[in-house]
């Protein structure tokens, strides 16, 4: 007797791929049939968030405690560490790093093969209010994971000092993309502080800037242009009031840039408002 008609696994995998951002549907799929499990888990656990501020964290605590039993750690490809509040930022980031290291350990222990498992990369989000990027601030907390951070995003933090930014960025040897959405500073530092001697290259391939502190960013980009040799994608919000400086930036960094993400605003007198920025697209073509 023939069984019910069934779709080939690659077709069901493809269908499940369309549900990539629907956790409820993915959870239901994972429980529907064993052949649907892998594709569902691939999206369910591909990216997990550790909220350094103690908010919603995708049930990561539960995941950490039961990981070996449910064997999902190997599905994790990216861990987002989010620090959006200034209150006890250093301690909370340290806790988030510890949690990441628990995932690392669980992954190593649950791996059956003799080869070293691929450890998840880290996307680090820092936002809102005061943040000290230096040795007295969050830098030491992140030293244990510095080689896993591949994406860094600043979203409206108030940094202690201007000249902390690029040394902080260059402390992540595998950082590939940097996004800056508004910056403010407590104290003025030197915008044009040159890179540390011996720093040959910051391996960033992508920089996206959409910031009210454009003057600072432009100055520091000019200072660091010589060590941004890997830059392939550059995103900028063009402001007509900074035209001369932006031309200098373009000349300094354009060498390897293959992708330009460009938007523009013009000013009405001296007063302007920024367009509200649409969230990033994340769709399959």
């Amino acid at each position, binding site marked *: 007797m023939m069984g019910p008609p069934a779709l080939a696994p690659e077709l069901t995998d493809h269908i499940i791929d369309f549900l990539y951002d629907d956790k409820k549907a993915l959870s239901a799929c994972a429980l529907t049939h064993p052949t649907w499990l892998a594709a569902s888990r691939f999206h369910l656990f591909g990216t997990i968030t550790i909220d350094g501020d103690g908010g919603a964290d995708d049930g990561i605590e539960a995941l950490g405690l039961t990981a070996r039993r449910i064997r999902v750690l190997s599905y994790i490809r990216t861990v987002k560490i989010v620090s959006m509040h200034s209150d006890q930022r250093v301690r909370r980031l340290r806790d988030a790093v510890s949690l990441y290291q628990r995932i690392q350990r669980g992954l190593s222990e649950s791996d059956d093969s003799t080869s070293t498992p691929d450890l998840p990369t880290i996307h680090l989000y820092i936002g809102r209010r005061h943040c000290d990027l230096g040795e007295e601030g969050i830098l030491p907390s992140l030293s244990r994971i510095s080689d896993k951070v591949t994406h860094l995003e600043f979203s409206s933090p108030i940094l202690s000092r201007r000249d902390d930014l690029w040394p902080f960025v260059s402390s992540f040897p595998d950082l590939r993309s940097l996004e800056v959405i508004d910056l403010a500073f407590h104290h003025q530092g030197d915008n044009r502080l040159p890179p540390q001697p011996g720093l040959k290259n910051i391996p960033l391939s992508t920089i996206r800037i959409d910031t009210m502190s454009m003057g600072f960013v432009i100055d520091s980009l000019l200072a660091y242009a010589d060590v941004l040799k890997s830059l392939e994608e550059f995103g900028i919000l063009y402001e007509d009031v900074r035209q001369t400086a932006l*031309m200098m930036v*373009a*000349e300094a960094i354009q060498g390897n840039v293959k992708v330009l993400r460009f938007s523009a605003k*013009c000013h009405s007198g001296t007063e302007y408002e920024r367009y509200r920025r*649409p969230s990033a697209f994340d769709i399959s073509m």
Partner: protein
Amino acid sequence: MFSEYETGISEFVRKFASLDTLVLDNLGLDVDADHYSIHYSLAWIPAVLRRLSSPIRRLVFEVSAREIFQLDAVPWGFVDELVTDPQNTQFRSLDRVEILVEYKRPPEGGSFLKHRDTLYREFKTRLPEIERVGLLRCSFVSSVK
């Protein structure tokens, strides 16, 4: 003729001599003009496209809109003509023109576009030559505001 502002923008983009992809992003066509004191214009788009210095492969427009008529703020007719004109060497290597539309719908409301096919039909009329030569790609994403 282009204004000083438009010329300035096009000069900036022109500096990038090795471009493979140009993404015109953040085209917020759903911006509430009354709420913003900024002079809102997309007149710089023709200037930028006309003065590109390198032959690009991908041209991408990332747009957010609430209503179909808002899409018409972009000078599509100009884009269609310029991109498919064989005299314009900067578009000779083009293998796709991508239109990404984001729609932030109110919780109670439906979408003015139902899916990618609908969007494609909309742009088929706006970019007829680009569609005819097979370069048009459309993607649509809808999210609750």
